[in-house]
């Protein structure tokens, strides 16, 4: 009996030792669908600009990565609760978020785009003309902050959890115009008949960074180094050209 316990302890120690020797493992969270950054292709495989960038980054830091799907609302709580270790889901760097999480250097920045029906001819910067229009935004995004701060009280703001719901309401004529991350609008609204871009895109915020827990400063160093390498060795540019017709590099 004693021998058995010794043998079992040895086996356990071996397993534990083996696990330690393995590559560090990282769980990375995405909110899908958010085309073309992260979405599921026809085969149900997770893909997109950020997913491929995450794969390249993991290779660069020799990490064993696992991808996790997480709804946007629960992103930061999930990170803090250790359900995953990194967020690479187009999270713009804001002071409020930086209170809770640690951001890497920004790895891209896309403008916010105004999209609406063909019949929409109002100048969105003219507050008099925009009065009582209904504007759709995704809750908690930099576009939400921009509209709330600049047009709050003038327009009616409708906040949505997902871009899909917002586009449905734009099609159903419940919204006059939406202000959404440019690539998302380009992919989901412009292909539909009867919709167009109604104003110039607006540059917002400090760009998008990888979010992690505040204590993971060593990891942040590794990730920043990896992102820098990818931006310099052409991997980033190849990926960007695959998904975008314009420059989002930062």
């Amino acid at each position, binding site marked *: 009996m004693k021998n058995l316990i010794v043998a079992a302890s040895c086996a356990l120690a071996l397993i534990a030792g083996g696990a330690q020797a393995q590559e560090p493992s990282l769980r990375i969270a995405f909110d899908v669908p958010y085309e073309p950054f992260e979405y599921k292709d026809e085969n149900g495989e997770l893909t997109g600009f950020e997913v491929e960038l995450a794969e390249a980054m993991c290779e660069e830091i020799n990490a064993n990565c696992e991808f996790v799907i997480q709804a946007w609302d629960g992103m930061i709580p999930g990170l803090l609760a250790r359900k995953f270790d990194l967020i690479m889901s187009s999270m713009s760097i804001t002071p*409020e978020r930086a209170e809770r999480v640690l951001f890497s250097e920004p790895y891209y920045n896309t403008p916010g785009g105004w999209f609406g029906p063909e019949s929409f001819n109002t100048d969105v910067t003219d507050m008099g003309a925009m009065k009582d229009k209904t504007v759709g935004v995704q809750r*908690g995004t930099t576009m939400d902050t921009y509209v709330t701060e600049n047009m709050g009280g003038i327009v009616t703001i409708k906040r949505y959890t997902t871009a899909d719901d917002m586009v449905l309401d734009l099609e159903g004529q*419940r919204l006059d115009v939406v202000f959404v991350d440019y690539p998302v609008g380009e992919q989901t609204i412009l292909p539909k008949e009867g919709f167009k871009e109604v104003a110039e895109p607006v540059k917002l915020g400090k760009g998008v960074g990888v979010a992690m827990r505040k204590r993971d400063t060593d990891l942040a160093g590794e990730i920043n180094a990896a992102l820098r390498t990818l931006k310099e060795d052409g991997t980033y540019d190849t990926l960007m050209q695959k998904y975008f017709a314009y420059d989002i590099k930062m």
Partner: protein
Amino acid sequence: MPDFIAEWLNQNEIFTAMTIMEYWDGLVTTVHLVFLSLVIGLLVAVPLAILRTVRNPFVSGPVWLYTYLFRGTPLLIQLYIIYYGLAQIEGIQETFWWEIFREPFYPALLAFTLNTAAYTTEIIRGAMVSTPNGEIEAAKAYGMNWLMRMRRIVLPSAARRAVQAYSNEVIFMLHASAIASVVTIVDLTGAARNIYSRFYAPFDAFIFVALCYMMLTFILVFAFRRLENHLLRHQRPVSG
């Protein structure tokens, strides 16, 4: 004590006068929505419950189907179907209906009303069929016709038996109204979600809103206890 509250209000970033106002507006919307759907739901449920007890299956059948459908599917799905489904009907945007259904308030009111009416119908029906036979026979012996029996005997005694179950339905409806926020209504939950997404402080935003719901529930429980005491006072033991 007020000093302590003032100090606490000054120290935290989240509960400023502005966010308190957002919660207040949310509270008004929640109460407005729940109150209207409950009142309309109850007004609809009483005649439906009577029809549901009629022996003729062509009369009671459709009511049975309606309560079966609305009790058999989640309220969230009903809300999605009414809110997004209505907007997909070809040409509805050109009719006067769109004036009503463009705003999220009325689709939500419709979904909540139909849902609570279905449950209330079954609650009232259950109370009606459990009317003691003796009471009905006595009423018949007095020569009361069907209408008079309903009005004087069946409905008043059913109301007494239904009130406890109905108070549960009212509280469930209050809590179920939290899903109104998924169709862009800024009710209490919607306000909490907006504030949470601005400050990333889930505990503060949601615990505060939970306390608001609890306060509303307390008021409802208190009101229903008063009502029960009033309706069921004949059942109390004679005080000594």
